[in-house]
């Protein structure tokens, strides 16, 4: 597998200032000001790639941070993203972004179930600027559609984007399917973990940390045509123990059992409104989903990172994270016959206790 870690260009103060202005427009849903700002930068001769990656991508990163810190709502996040999408569309039709096709053909897509379409959109625009012929299939592309597209076109490579780790099993299926029809796959996005560590176990041909690095990597030399006799099951031999299958299939009943047990353990929960109860169930379903993904990749860190992040988000929303450890314990009790699941849940609990004591130490 090839990976790229090309150094980022030095951040110019100009880009930072533009990003600040764009954030102001985007966060107040002023799409008119947002588009005007970006188009004026292009009129003034700014490099379109830099506008996309050093200004718009940076603002989009901030949208995610602001949401995690509970400074904006999910709906505001969607609104900001929608405006960013429109701004990207405006950049793509600006005369400065008009480029002739000088290279091969690349298909850009998000994994099925992946709703964060902007990173892939930005990559598609950057590849166009670099002279590729790009087919951008958009967010959440069902794998069968992707494969039909590859049969109908002669793409040199697929660039697959995923931001949420729980999409990784689906991403694995998509990667294998593309390779089975003879097309190499470059992956990217937060889902693939720190330094893209999940890209290799999932059989990706290459990984890149961001759009610029992905474009550099593709320009370097063409990705080799994958071997067609690759067996998907060879990638992750631990799946033979069926733990992933059982946990992901019984998610709904696990959630129900743990929720009931939590209500027994915490009588105060019985006073929850239906909405609160549903939120708790959703949180539990999320935990089970990440547990299943950690089982799929046999990686405890995937689970502990999620647990630590959840605790932070809960704290940011003023919800005590105290319900997390008992939830993990109850899940562990349900899954005590599954050694890998038990180990992963234990490490989740461990993360919470150490994080908690650190937090307590800080406040003391």
């Amino acid at each position, binding site marked *: 597998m090839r990976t790229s870690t090309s150094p980022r260009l030095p951040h110019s103060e100009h880009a930072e200032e533009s990003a600040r202005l764009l954030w102001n427009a985007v966060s107040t849903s002023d799409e008119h000001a947002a588009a005007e700002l970006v188009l004026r930068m292009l009129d003034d001769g700014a490099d379109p790639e830099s506008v996309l990656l050093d200004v718009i991508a940076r603002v989009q990163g901030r949208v995610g941070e602001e949401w995690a810190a509970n400074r904006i709502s999910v709906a505001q996040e969607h609104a900001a993203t929608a405006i960013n999408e429109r701004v990207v569309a405006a950049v793509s*039709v600006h005369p400065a972004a008009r480029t002739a096709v000088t290279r091969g053909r690349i298909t850009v897509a998000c994994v099925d179930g992946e709703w964060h379409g902007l990173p892939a959109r930005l990559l598609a625009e950057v590849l166009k600027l670099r002279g590729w012929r790009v087919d951008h299939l958009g967010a959440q592309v069902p794998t069968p559609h992707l494969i039909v597209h590859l049969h109908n076109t002669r793409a040199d490579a697929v660039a697959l984007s995923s931001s949420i780790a729980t999409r990784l099993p689906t991403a694995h299926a998509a990667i294998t399917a593309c390779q089975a029809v003879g097309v190499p796959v470059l992956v990217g996005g937060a889902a693939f973990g720190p330094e893209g560590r999940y890209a290799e176990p999932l059989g990706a041909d290459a990984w890149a940390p961001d759009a610029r690095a992905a474009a550099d990597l593709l320009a370097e030399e063409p990705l080799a045509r994958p071997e067609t006799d690759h067996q998907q099951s060879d990638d992750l031999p631990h799946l033979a123990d069926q733990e992933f299958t059982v946990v992901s299939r019984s998610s709904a009943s696990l959630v129900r059992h743990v929720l009931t047990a939590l209500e027994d353990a915490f009588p105060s929960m019985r006073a929850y409104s239906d*909405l609160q109860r549903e939120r708790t169930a959703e949180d539990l379903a999320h935990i089970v989903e990440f547990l299943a993904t950690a089982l799929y990749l046999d990686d405890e860190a995937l689970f502990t990172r999620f647990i630590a992040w959840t605790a932070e988000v809960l704290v940011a929303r003023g919800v005590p994270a105290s319900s997390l450890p008992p939830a993990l314990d109850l899940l562990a009790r349900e899954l005590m016959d599954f050694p890998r699941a038990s180990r992963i849940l234990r490490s989740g609990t461990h993360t919470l206790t150490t994080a908690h004591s650190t937090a307590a130490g800080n406040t003391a």
Partner: protein
Amino acid sequence: MRCNDAAGPLLPAAAPGTSLVDVAPAWLCAAHTRLASPGPHPVPETGLTLRGDIGGRHFEAHPTVRGDGSVAWWLVDDTGHQLAREALRRERERSAFLAKASNVLLASLNLGRCMDGTAHMAAENLADAALVIAPARGQRLPVVTCVRGGAPATTTVTVDLDEVPGLAEALRGFPPVPSRWIDPATAPGWMTPERFGPVGSIVITPLPGHGVPAGALILLRATETAAFSDEEEAFARLFAARAGAAMSAARLYAEQSTVSDMLMRELLPPDLHQISGVDFAGGYRPSADHERIGGDFYDVHPATVEGAGALVSLGDVCGKGLEAAVLTGKIRNTLHALLPLADDHQRMLSLLNTALLSSHHTRFATMVLASAVRRGSAVDLKLTSGGHPSPLIVRADGTVEEADTHGTLIGAIPNVSATTTTASLAPGESCVLYTDGITEAKGGPMGDDLFGDERLKRALAGCAGMPAEGIVEHVQMLAAQWLGNRPHDDMAVVVISAPRTHHLSAVNGHTRGRFTA
């Protein structure tokens, strides 16, 4: 030396008293000298049998040192064995190659990729360079060329087929001809890859497809490589049969998908954008992930007369899949024809009802019609439901109102009735039309709850002030997350919004607006 009767014919010069050196081949003499020489013998490696040729046949030689110091050489003829072993090795190599070829060729239904694979494998295994030619219309031939050790390259050559002996027949598949040799001196220039050097031999093999010609394979060998043997040529034909079948399947697939794409284009939901100062956005998800169309549909038609509203239709045909999609096409066409009546929703629904009743379809549909027109900074709406879930209006303060319109479903009974309601959207407010695939999505954290009207309204309450496509995406995402991997019905959402600020027309990708220099 002495020899027995059997050795006589083998070594005709051997007679008692002659020297071994004069009658036996060098390899045997050398071994004998090593064995007979005094002093410490090099320990013969165990299991290593001495072998060599005598008079065109192959022998194993086993020495026995006799009591008197002389050596008896037992010669065993294993010519047949050797030939069999060599043939077995070759056959194994070939079947491994054919298996690999099948793997590579079966993997893709893309003609270009099949041609690449064919040229690449032929150049690596059968020749020094290979050209794969697809049959063409006219004189322009798509050609993939690959030199051993290189990557396949696609070109198009304009060629007079009759100029190359055998090529026209191979590409036509008629008359059926086996591979054909051509004189490298008469080969046209495009047949020789750049920097290939002088060509020693060229053979043209037809690629037979599924009963139709799929193209031709041209194999080239350099002068320093041996020319093709009959056996190699026969083997190349085996490979050509597989390659031809794969290319033919890819071609059929491409033809079929062109036809279905063309037919489907009319049935796909349209891309929505701003029309006359009103924002429209739509999202569609068919019930089956491998399909792109289903029984839900929507359309937005610009006003036919100045000052009238754009007409939005969103509906749901009973059933799903292709058959339901065909009926959505009929309904959409009928509505299109009725556009001059767009102002009178009830009349439109009634005429559509009559049209559906008189068609051979037994299916019925529910739908909602909306006329939207910009008045100042507000958008005036007229909404009519024909048996469809009522549109929801998202106010600027987050209040969600259900539009008060009800009616009978379409295409089931002779007379339909429906009530029409009006509403006005202030800037930033939206009207959401949806199909029951959203509200009847079954799932959630416990796995068996319906998404339901209440959850949808609650979600929309948080969407106040959002751009239309943001609301569509938000609703679609919530429904998809609610479902997880569970089966579902077709789902469609259309959002009509009054633009929040002075609208920027440059960003819908259709006009450049005032930013054009």
